[in-house]
């Protein structure tokens, strides 16, 4: 299996604060890769580095074999231009904790926006595809609703449809259910489970241990900017080896 995401000694600083202290990991194509850990452990920051929303300060990060955010030539790194970074992000879908739907557009327009603007898909084609995707996440009847008219769970499902509209080869989920009322979490996890079954490569930062155990193929536990423990979700969650993992899991499980 080829690596969809490959991190080699990734470091990240915010000013003098070191948030990532050398992350090495590999996400294989087609797997669901879960990242868990306490807040402030750097897991969301790492996820945002994968599509270059954050710039890394040391190490290398590859998506599908391509260096993220830079071009390496004759042993030197060159920053990519705005346009080139945008092109790299096309194939990476991202779902945010706070949904970040475009509030001035209907659900359907949200899903159509990127294909039309970025890929130059015709409006008619993009609309058909958007309706298809909204049906898939169970929101066929809400396509003309504005985000403010939708519940949190519905908004997050639209956000997933919006990311899928670009036909990404990799999906990043940044705590997709953390901002939801408890009774709305299930509907979003169902959609994600469905995606995983379709073979989508997914990197999921989550606090939903049940989901990680059931759907995840790999899991890493991060704390204080490092990967403390990794393995299969069942193994890490049921039989943690490290003290920090044990104490974290005892609090959340």
């Amino acid at each position, binding site marked *: 299996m080829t690596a969809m995401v490959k991190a080699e000694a990734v470091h990240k600083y915010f000013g003098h604060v070191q948030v990532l202290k050398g992350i090495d990991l590999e996400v294989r194509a087609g797997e669901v890769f879960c990242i868990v850990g306490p807040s402030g452990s750097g897991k969301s920051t790492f996820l945002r580095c994968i599509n270059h929303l954050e710039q890394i300060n040391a190490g290398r990060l590859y998506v599908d074999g391509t260096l993220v955010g830079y071009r390496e030539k004759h042993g030197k790194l060159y920053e990519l231009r705005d346009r080139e970074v945008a092109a790299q*992000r096309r194939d990476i879908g991202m779902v*945010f904790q706070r949904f*970040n739907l*475009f*509030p001035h557009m209907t659900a359907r327009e949200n899903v159509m926006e990127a294909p039309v603007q970025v890929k130059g898909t015709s409006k008619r084609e993009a609309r058909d595809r958007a309706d298809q995707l909204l049906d898939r996440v169970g929101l066929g009847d809400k396509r003309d609703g504005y985000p403010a008219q939708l519940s949190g769970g519905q908004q997050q499902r639209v*956000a997933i449809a919006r990311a899928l509209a670009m036909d990404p080869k990799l999906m990043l989920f940044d705590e997709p259910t953390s901002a939801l009322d408890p009774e709305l979490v299930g509907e979003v996890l169902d959609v994600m489970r469905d995606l995983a079954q379709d073979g989508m490569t997914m990197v999921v930062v989550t606090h939903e241990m049940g989901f990680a155990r059931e759907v995840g193929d790999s899991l890493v536990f991060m704390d204080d900017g490092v990967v403390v423990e990794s393995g299969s979700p069942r193994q890490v969650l049921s039989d943690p080896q490290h003290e920090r993992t044990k104490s974290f899991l005892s609090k959340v499980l």
Partner: protein
Amino acid sequence: MKDPLDKTADATPPSAPAPELIKAIPVRHYGRYVAAAVVLTLLALFANAVANADLRWASVGDFFFDDQILEGVKNTIVVSVLAMLMGLVLGIVLAVMRMSKNPVTTTVAWGYIWFFRGTPVYVQLLLWFNLALIFPILNLGPIYKDEMTDVMTPFMAALLGLGLNEAAYMAEICRAGIQSVDEGQTEASHALGMTNAQNMRRIVLPQAMRVIVPPTGNEFINLLKTSSLCAVVMYEETLRKAQNIGNNSGAVVELLLVATLWYLLITTVFSIGQYYLERRYARGTSRQLPPTPWQRIRRNLFTVGRGTGSEVRGA
């Protein structure tokens, strides 16, 4: 069929007797009666004074649609609209310059705003109008060369004076609007592969408009009124026309009233336009917008046609 989970049915058993409603004597607000009486008295005194004033109301009516006045009104609207457009375009440019990472553009934009907001527009108008005194020849190298007095007509002085001043205010309004949009919006559009330009045009600006439009409407209405200052640079707008006729005919106050009524009329019309513009950019922000006055009228007509109203009429 009764839903076992539905408790609403049990909440108010039908057998319960209707409660006796409270019939209390309301508090008398004597202060309100006094205040109303005072205000009405003052209004009556004012109306009496106006009625007995040495005003020829007929001249107000006579001159209201005078050709000269109408041309003045047209000139007022033309210079205001053009100055506003100039202010808007230049304002957006200045706002972007101000927010850029380039220290040169940031400083220049800051300096521009500092100067034009820090000096009275009246002084700026006079400066533009008298530019020929220090630059007799306008020389733009090989592109253009002419006598300054030919270029700096009253219209140009008015347009530049109002427009450049307006740009400084619009720059701050645009900046506030753009900065009011949640950063998550930019992250989401970037994550979808949109470039900075696409993000600005498709995602940020449309949302910023909701914040930009209301103060811009106020700015425009202010500008319509400020344009009366252009009388000082010989621009033939409403006030100047009214003063000309007033001085010639002796009906000074009557013509000032004509100008007053025209300004009120224009600002009212544009305020209504602003109301509809704000609604357009409020899309998606509230679950249901209240109906516009026009929609209310149409709905009422519609229900009358359906017979709900005809019952009332038939009764």
